[in-house]
């Protein structure tokens, strides 16, 4: 087991090599207080909120959606019931279980402040936390972690607010002043300890490379420990073999590249590592001394053509995501009780079905907050309706809520980011986006 070797290197080498590892945030333990965990899942490509959380009770819904319309609960292929007006897509069985267990809040008619129709700019605003694309080069989550690291560092003498990005690099939301790390499954043979030790020496005078290497090794150690722990539980006797762990899902995960326009390849049938990524995320988060925040991407939500309804393209992507979330809960075990997972996308899709049985770039959409820490079983929406007069620019679900209100609620009441940091550095100029309170169990 290559990973095991690397972990041994970390454990035995950390003392011997000292210096480089002192720069690693993951190498530090925090105090034993119960820790709030947060997973941010970016759904790149613009999720169709009217399909993921269909407002089947709206009198205009079926007419706009035509063959894409989901039927009311109780009919074959019908939506899963939420509150008599909204439902969940039938592929989202785990989310529905979470709703029933009062661990899921569905937000609807919500959007970031972005009002144009470019994926790239929309994702930039979703991640940078300002009103404009490319206004800053850092992300709101990193800035929030920076405020935590600064605050706790003063009080306790140790860093807090650690984060990990599941992917080779950092998505914008995780870039910035706070120390974070990244991890992704290896496809190449593991390095031997001797070579690693020599490279660590070579990096002794290079702060950036020394810190990145230390973070990578620490992250690998946690991930491999997680994989072994799973195997020991008997949940997956062959954990570690790609074939056994891979899910066959048409949606890509942990792509660090944003979605590649309308003609992006679907990678249909290619084994992808949803399960591996989710297990790794859980492995990081469930440790008392591991990071508090994990971020990963999902792609393939840009359903311009043949979107499908109860079954089809979007249905299978949602099913894969739903299964990944179920695995996340299972893998987190007792840590699920302290966890919140937020699923968000850059914007929504047109209210009406287009000429290619899909939907085009729109505005408002749905977002999902789930986890054992969440005060759920609710849909939070100021529903604008779907009549032609109610639609934004005559074509999109009208945004009546600002996603930053949810983000501020999560950061303030779950991660305990101070309101002064929230209003100044994390979400500048966000006074209009009032914090949604009470999203978490007391």
């Amino acid at each position: 087991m290559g990973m095991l070797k690397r972990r041994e290197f970390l454990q035995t080498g950390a003392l011997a090599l000292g210096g480089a590892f002192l720069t690693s945030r993951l190498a530090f333990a925090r105090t034993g207080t119960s820790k709030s965990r947060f997973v941010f899942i970016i759904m790149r490509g613009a999720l169709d909120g009217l399909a993921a959380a269909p407002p089947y009770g709206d009198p205009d819904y079926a007419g706009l959606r035509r063959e894409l319309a989901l039927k009311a609960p109780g009919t074959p292929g019908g939506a899963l019931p939420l509150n008599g007006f909204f439902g969940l897509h039938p592929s989202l069985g785990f989310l529905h279980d979470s709703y029933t267990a009062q661990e899921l809040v569905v937000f609807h008619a919500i959007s970031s402040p972005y009002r144009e129709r470019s994926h790239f700019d929309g994702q930039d605003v979703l991640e940078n936390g300002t009103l404009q694309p490319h206004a800053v080069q850092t992300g709101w989550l990193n800035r929030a972690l920076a405020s935590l690291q600064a605050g706790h560092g003063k009080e306790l003498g140790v860093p807090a607010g650690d984060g990990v990005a599941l992917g080779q690099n950092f998505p914008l939301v995780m870039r910035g002043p706070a120390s974070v790390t990244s991890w992704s499954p290896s496809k190449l043979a593991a390095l031997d300890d001797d070579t690693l030790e020599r490279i660590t020496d070579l990096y002794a005078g290079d702060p950036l490379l020394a810190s990145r290497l230390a973070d990578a090794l620490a992250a690998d150690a946690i991930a491999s420990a997680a994989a072994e722990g799973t195997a020991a539980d008997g949940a997956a006797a062959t954990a570690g073999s790609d074939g056994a762990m891979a899910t066959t899902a048409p949606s890509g995960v942990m792509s660090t590249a944003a979605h590649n326009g309308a003609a992006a390849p679907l990678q249909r049938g290619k084994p992808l590592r949803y399960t591996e990524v989710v297990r790794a995320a859980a492995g990081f988060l469930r440790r008392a001394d591991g990071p508090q925040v994990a971020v990963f991407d999902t792609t393939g939500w840009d359903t311009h053509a043949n979107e499908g309804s109860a079954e089809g393209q979007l249905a299978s992507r949602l099913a894969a995501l739903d299964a990944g979330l179920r695995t996340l809960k299972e893998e987190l075990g007792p840590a699920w009780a302290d966890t919140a997972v937020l699923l968000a996308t850059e914007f929504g899709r047109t209210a009406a079905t287009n000429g290619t049985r899909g939907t085009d770039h729109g505005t408002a959409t749905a977002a999902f907050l789930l986890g054992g820490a969440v005060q759920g079983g609710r849909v939070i929406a100021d529903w604008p309706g779907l009549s032609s007069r109610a639609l934004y620019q005559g074509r999109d679900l009208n945004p009546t809520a600002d996603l930053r209100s949810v983000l501020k609620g999560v950061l303030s009441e779950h991660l305990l980011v101070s309101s002064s940091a929230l209003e100044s550095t994390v979400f500048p100029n966000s006074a209009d986006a009032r914090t949604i309170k009470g999203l978490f169990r007391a």
Partner: protein
Amino acid sequence: MLGKRYADAGYDQGVAVLKDLAAKPATAHFIATKLVRHFVADDPPPRAVERVANAFLSSNGHLPTVYRALIESQEAWSQPLAKYKTPNDYIVSTFRGLQLPADRGRASLAAFEVMGQRTYSPGSPAGWPDRSADWDGASALIKRIEWADAVGQRVGSRVDAKELAPQLLGDNLTPATRTAIARAASGAQAITLMLSAPEFMRR
């Protein structure tokens, strides 16, 4: 357009606008900044930007002249090297440095993906960003080292890193790297160390 009116001459009207835009100092500065950021440093040294911008203006946008000014900029060669190589630079410079056969080029495509920049898949129509925060992740670094290790395994028996390193790295080769390569446990490891060295990771 910027206070000037252009006669409606069809296609030629657009050409006239573009010609005027190309001659603006702001255009020269914009292009010079992008070039210097891409090739020299995330935060472009102002003097290098100015020199490249002047070359753009004085040559009427003659690109070979512009590139020559970039190459002749002292800042492009000053030490320590400022720019952490993109995955593309890293992979291409490895192939060139080791004179790996071009027909194996396809094998490098997987390397682009594991280092975080899958070929033809940037997240934006503007292409891959030019600031290294986009590709200097911890996991991307370990993938880079693992790939260097795989390259070392492949060529270590026939390429001597002790001889090659001074040729590839010139004055940038540090005593620490030179010593590490000399003391490597095998030819393969020496290649891996050369390709993983801080001075090969940067340009």
